[in-house]
């Protein structure tokens, strides 16, 4: 049976390295079974100001020459990684659903999953381990 790790992202992108490190650590779960006898299932949750990572049309590549957080999120969606976005924080920051990243152009079958904070808490209970970024 797979172990699960929940990566909670609570900071906005770019000023802090934390959101990208959360995403890259989550991605590393896909090869964690090189080290242990079980698979590791990553789940990512954006809460608080962390939901600002989920706004599309990021242009960091153009202005700073670094891959955007958006591209990382798209890669993860295309890899079928479950990604939750806190509904209350989107409302608080007046971010409409049409502004959210999707990876349909990359053939992703899933989108960011907008859920209430209570659902994030349920995921916190369900997971085996949690890392708060």
């Amino acid at each position: 049976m797979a172990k699960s790790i929940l990566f909670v992202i609570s900071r906005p992108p770019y000023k802090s390295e934390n959101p990208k490190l959360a995403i890259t650590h989550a991605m590393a779960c896909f090869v964690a079974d090189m080290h242990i006898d079980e698979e590791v299932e990553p789940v990512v949750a954006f809460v608080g100001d962390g939901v600002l990572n989920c706004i599309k049309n990021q242009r960091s590549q153009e202005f700073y020459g670094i891959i955007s957080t958006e591209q990382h999120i798209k890669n993860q969606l295309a890899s079928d990684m479950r990604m939750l976005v806190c509904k209350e924080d989107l409302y608080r920051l007046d971010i409409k659903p049409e502004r959210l990243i999707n990876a349909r152009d990359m053939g992703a079958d899933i989108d960011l999953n907008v859920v209430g904070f209570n659902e994030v808490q349920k995921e916190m209970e369900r997971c085996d381990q949690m890392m708060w970024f």
Partner: protein
Amino acid sequence: MRLGVFVSDCQKNDSMLERLNGEGLGIFFVENGVYHAVIHENGRDSGVLQKKGVNYYALASDIQTRGFTTSEIDSRVNVVTYEDVVDLMMNDYEKLIWL
């Protein structure tokens, strides 16, 4: 879920702490988080201390590092050592987060 939350700052994360709940929630004040347990800004206790059903802990060495004594700690807060923190982490809390 028995959740232990480490609070290392005194000026942020109140809103996230407000949302976190659950039976047996524990809040560990460490580093500058210990100010929540001793400072009365504008005469009022920290809002973090208003949560019901929470066990509060403050690291004695971080209190004393900042010029306070453990006798100044709010009565709701348990003063703990690193040894206590390790025991609490292992025995009383299944998951831990650092805000």
